[in-house]
């Protein structure tokens, strides 16, 4: 089996991840931060380690302002719904995932003005276009670091600089880039960084977070109110980080896995992971482009994108290609619109969508070659001629 769906969730996980989760449940699976006994303290240490590792990976000095959520979507909702109110303007792009587009559509109904800046045919954003959308009422810029459809990288350092110059907050959706692209919140001018744990950080599903930079502190309303284990003499929700955004018991077993995944990334090195995935993406792009009838979306340059390679085959529906690839070559990939309707409109692939290959660290060049051959074989056949 060839797993090419790492942009949806990475698989397999490093051995240390399920081991850490098993150890947590088997040895100290108590509630972190609620009680004072040894098991609760040890559970708290595991969660704190995850905070420290995430802060270190993202050039974010303070582990206390790493807020854990169940995924990047929740983190983005916290950033967007927590910050924006009637009369505010927010700038974003057409390449965003629904995790940004839908909260913004919801907020539009509550008086927030939204600019969706068009991108190029390859999914790239021109910072000058974004700058033109900014007005005196703009409060936030929110962009994905890497497109989940075509992997195209956003020039976040440039946008961060622009945001500082215009005194805007800058929120980055790092769901597709955290762990595979270098991210330094301080150097890149990022105020809010939303990440998921289950993609290139190799943690389990149900983990994610929001790193809250200095300029954004105290400015987000919590999505949830409830028990935090702190200030227990009051029925008023606390205002300090991270407790103010972490009401209720955390997914501590998941965070044990995330801590192990973060340790794995640290040990391997983001640059080395990126180099491996870029090499696979470059081969995929080159191999697929050579096949008659195959149209590869995006920049065409592995250096300018993550290892997300989407394509279509003339005469075939993308879902038929995905099904045939699994049946004939045991390739697991994702076809369709990838929860990014505006991106597919921008790329000219709406409403059909595309086939998405997203190799990861554990894939090999041999697997890439097998996949290219499998696509070539399908592209040479008339649609429906598989029986």
């Amino acid at each position: 089996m060839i797993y090419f769906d790492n942009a949806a969730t990475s698989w397999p996980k490093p051995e240390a991840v399920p081991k850490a989760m098993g150890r947590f449940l088997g040895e100290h699976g108590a509630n972190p931060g609620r009680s004072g006994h040894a098991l609760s303290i040890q559970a708290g240490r595991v969660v704190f380690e995850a905070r420290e590792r995430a802060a270190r990976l993202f050039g974010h000095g303070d582990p206390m302002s790493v807020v854990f959520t169940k995924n990047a979507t929740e983190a983005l909702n916290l950033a967007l719904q927590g910050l924006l109110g009637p009369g505010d303007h927010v700038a974003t792009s057409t390449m965003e995932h629904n995790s940004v587009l839908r909260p913004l559509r919801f907020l539009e109904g509550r008086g927030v003005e939204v600019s969706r800046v068009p991108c190029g045919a390859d999914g790239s954003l021109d910072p000058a276009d974004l700058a033109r959308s900014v007005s005196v009422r703009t409060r936030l810029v929110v962009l994905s670091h890497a497109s989940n459809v075509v992997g195209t990288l956003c020039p976040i350092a440039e946008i961060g600089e622009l945001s500082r110059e215009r005194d805007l907050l800058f929120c980055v959706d790092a769901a597709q880039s955290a762990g595979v692209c270098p991210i330094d919140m301080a150097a890149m001018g990022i105020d809010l960084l939303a990440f998921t744990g289950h993609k290139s950080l190799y943690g389990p599903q149900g983990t994610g977070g929001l790193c809250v930079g200095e300029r954004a502190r105290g400015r987000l309303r919590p999505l949830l109110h409830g028990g935090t284990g702190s200030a227990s003499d009051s029925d008023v929700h606390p205002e300090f980080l991270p407790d103010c955004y972490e009401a209720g018991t955390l997914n501590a077993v998941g965070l044990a896995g995330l801590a192990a995944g973060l340790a794995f990334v640290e040990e391997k090195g983001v640059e080395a992971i990126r180099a491996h995935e870029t090499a696979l993406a470059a081969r995929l792009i080159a191999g697929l482009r050579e096949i008659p009838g195959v149209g590869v979306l995006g920049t065409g340059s592995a250096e300018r994108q993550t290892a997300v390679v989407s394509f279509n085959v003339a005469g075939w529906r993308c879902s038929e290609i995905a099904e045939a690839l699994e049946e004939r070559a045991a390739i697991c990939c994702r076809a369709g619109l990838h929860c990014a309707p505006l991106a597919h409109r921008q790329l000219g692939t709406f409403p059909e969508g595309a086939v998405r290959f997203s190799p990861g660290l554990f894939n090999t060049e041999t697997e890439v070659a097998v996949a290219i051959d499998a696509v070539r074989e399908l592209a040479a056949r008339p649609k429906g001629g598989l029986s």
Partner: protein
Amino acid sequence: MSSCEPEEGYGVALFRSVQGALGAERLLLAAGIAHKLIPVPRHISSNCGFCVRFAWADRDRVEHALAVADLGTERVMRL
């Protein structure tokens, strides 16, 4: 109190949340200061979770070690 209680007794550092106590543990370990995470004494705080206990003779060293980070320290007091 145990028979091996330090001569000057114990002190505790209390934090807004357990995240602060866990951050303090890291700093005190790095500074080589003996300490223990213990349940928050109910008579001095309403917080759930745990705080840091140390020998009161080490008070200055503890306060110095904790000053390097914003841990949400509420109080350092004699137990």
